[in-house]
């Protein structure tokens, strides 16, 4: 291998240069977000729990987890969801993929002067409905109002507390060669639905956000397969972000099979139009599940028995090779590397 060829560990970025100011790409969930976390945040406030960089952080006894997430999506309402549904689903999912049952949520609303009360009410109604769907209550909250023109109308922050399922042994470190990667359905639809709604409202599309609380699905899965190895929801950074991260952190090669990764034709076309790779696009209701190969068929049946896992399928496996790369075997029989996206997803220009 030529020494000039990059090693493609997603962690190269940590040694990257510090940009003097925050740019949008720092928020993209890609390599620059990693740089922000590792160069600025962890040096100041890092500790053993935080340094794990899990979707939720555990208390010292490992029994309770806490998570928090902010939602700044534009537009507030989009096909298949809205900022309220996102705010509940995202936080519930962060707990669920860590093997926790959500106990309750805290909700903070930042509202801009001039926002219609009707809009706030619609979002609250959606929050209420989604919380019911997830079987979780909002236990506390806060409201702030900021001047007109700030906060894009509305920002929401939700925190959540969960208790670890007693049978949960989830750990990225336990991922081993031969393990199988599963996903619960088609990818790319949330990011595309939002991007189309924001940038090309005149385009009519059947694509809808997949935003949904996944705790029910993951409970069914873990009831059937107590030995699930690892789970992560494929939000910002998409499927590529999750798989490249697993490869880099476990130092194993992850092999994905393009022909098995579920992508709807509409999503493929929309991604092509925007110049994006479906693997890079954010989902809000998709989870990557790693199981031992002997558990794969039971896990798949369990997932497929739940409405949010009907299209669940196997998409790849963990290989012996210790190069920390995620490799995609393509539909034409070729192969290429899958990396964590850089950051802000930019539309192409022709």
């Amino acid at each position, binding site marked *: 291998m030529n020494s000039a060829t990059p090693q493609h560990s997603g962690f190269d970025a940590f040694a990257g240069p510090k940009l003097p100011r925050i740019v949008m*790409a720092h928020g993209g969930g890609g390599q620059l977000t990693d740089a922000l976390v590792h160069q600025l945040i962890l040096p100041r406030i890092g500790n053993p729990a935080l340094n794990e960089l899990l979707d939720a952080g555990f208390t010292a006894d490992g029994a309770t987890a806490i998570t928090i997430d902010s939602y700044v999506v534009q537009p507030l309402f989009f096909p298949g969801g809205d900022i309220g549904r996102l705010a509940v689903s995202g936080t519930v999912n962060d707990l669920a993929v860590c093997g926790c049952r959500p106990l309750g949520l805290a909700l903070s609303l930042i509202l801009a002067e001039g926002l219609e009360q009707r809009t706030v009410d619609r979002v609250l109604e959606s929050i209420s409905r989604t919380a019911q769907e997830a079987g979780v209550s909002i236990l506390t909250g806060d409201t702030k109002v900021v001047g007109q023109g700030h906060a894009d109308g509305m920002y929401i922050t939700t925190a959540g507390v969960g208790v670890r399922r007693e049978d949960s042994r989830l750990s990225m470190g336990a991922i081993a060669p031969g393990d199988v990667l599963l996903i619960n359905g088609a990818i790319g639809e949330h990011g595309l639905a939002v991007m189309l709604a924001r940038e090309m409202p005149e385009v009519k599309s059947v694509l809808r956000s997949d935003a949904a609380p996944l705790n029910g699905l993951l409970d069914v899965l873990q009831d059937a397969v107590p030995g699930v190895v690892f789970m992560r929801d494929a939000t910002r950074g998409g499927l590529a972000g999750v798989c490249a991260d697993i490869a880099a952190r476990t130092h194993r090669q992850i092999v994905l099979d393009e*022909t098995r990764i579920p992508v709807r034709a509409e999503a493929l076309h929309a991604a092509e139009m925007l110049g994006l790779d479906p693997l890079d696009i954010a989902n809000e209701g998709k989870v990557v599940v790693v199981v031992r190969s002997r558990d794969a068929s039971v896990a798949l049946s369990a997932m497929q028995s739940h409405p949010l896992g009907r299209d669940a399928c196997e998409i790849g496996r963990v290989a012996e090779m210790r190069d920390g790369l995620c490799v995609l075997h393509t539909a034409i029989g070729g192969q290429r590397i899958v990396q964590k996206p850089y950051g802000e997803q930019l539309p192409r220009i022709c």
Partner: protein
Amino acid sequence: MNNALSHNAEPRLLLQRLHAAAKNVKGRLAFMEVCGTHTTSAFRCGLHSVLPANVRLISGPGCPVCVTSQADIDQLVGLARRDDVVLCTYGDMLRVPGQHSSLEKIRGQGGRIEVVYSSLDAVALAQREPDRRIVFAAVGFETTAPATAVAIRRAEELRLKNFSALASHKTIIPALRALLEDRGHLKINGFLCPGHVSVVIGSDAYVPIVQEYGIACVIGGFEPTLLLAALACLTELAAEGKAALVNQYPQAVSSRGNGRAQALLTQVFEPADARWRGMGVIAGSGLRIRKEYERFDAQKVFALPVLQDCDPKGCLCGQVISGQIDPPRCSLFARACTPVNPIGPCMVSSEGTCAAWFKYGQKRMVNDGRQMQEAVL
């Protein structure tokens, strides 16, 4: 659930055709694509890793961002710094470094840069904000130039006084000529001609290239099987020693192209010399806004000075764009220059050759893929 990319027999048959034709060729073949979307599609589907050992597909000057000269980037950065200006740009231009800054950095410092998906978004912004001067960064080939023409015509209809375009549009045929004139540097056996550009200019536009230079031109689409079909065709032509023009994308490309788009281009623009990154000034390869529309020409409106063109030190984007070297030959590649901290435009644009090599792990994947292919075929 159907996967939109599910296996079918077609790629296998096309690959067999391609490999069979390549066996009938003595020596090595290199074909050049000149379209950013071809670059991306080829890398994304792992095309390079399934090619026969004696066939290469190299990327030429097809990424609109990459061919834009440093001076043109600096001009945009300069405009973006002005308090009275809102600069509207296609997203790919945001992160291209100029000599001292990039649009992304100017935005981080409070400059108003709007990412638009359509030139008309910039016109609409000019309508909404009459107190601001809206400048549209008009880059790209014959694919985006008609959209700029539409925007200028629309601004005229609306009698807007606060809209202008900084046009650095380019045309592909003069660039192909320039590459072929300079053949000492470049040995290619045929062009994979761009799908989108050809929709506008039509397949007949390549006739002079084939006739004058005796080189094969095959117009191809973007899906993996269409790419494979175009390459199989190019390899078969090479094996037969034929220089011909073949339209392998007839579902979208006609012989005469899109007359309406061409008329718009002629109405608003006139051919002019243009500076390309790393390739210097190519005669007649640019589109300048005609005098009748000069009140929408940012160059004139802001009386912009001619800037010195100077590529970043050590950056070999120019040689990459003209197909002379592969990215790893540049000493900055994957060391000082990465997608997180790009130095040259080819590492910035998602359609850039360096970015694609970096992102998709070109060299290694080709080596591994070839072993896999040899086992299968």
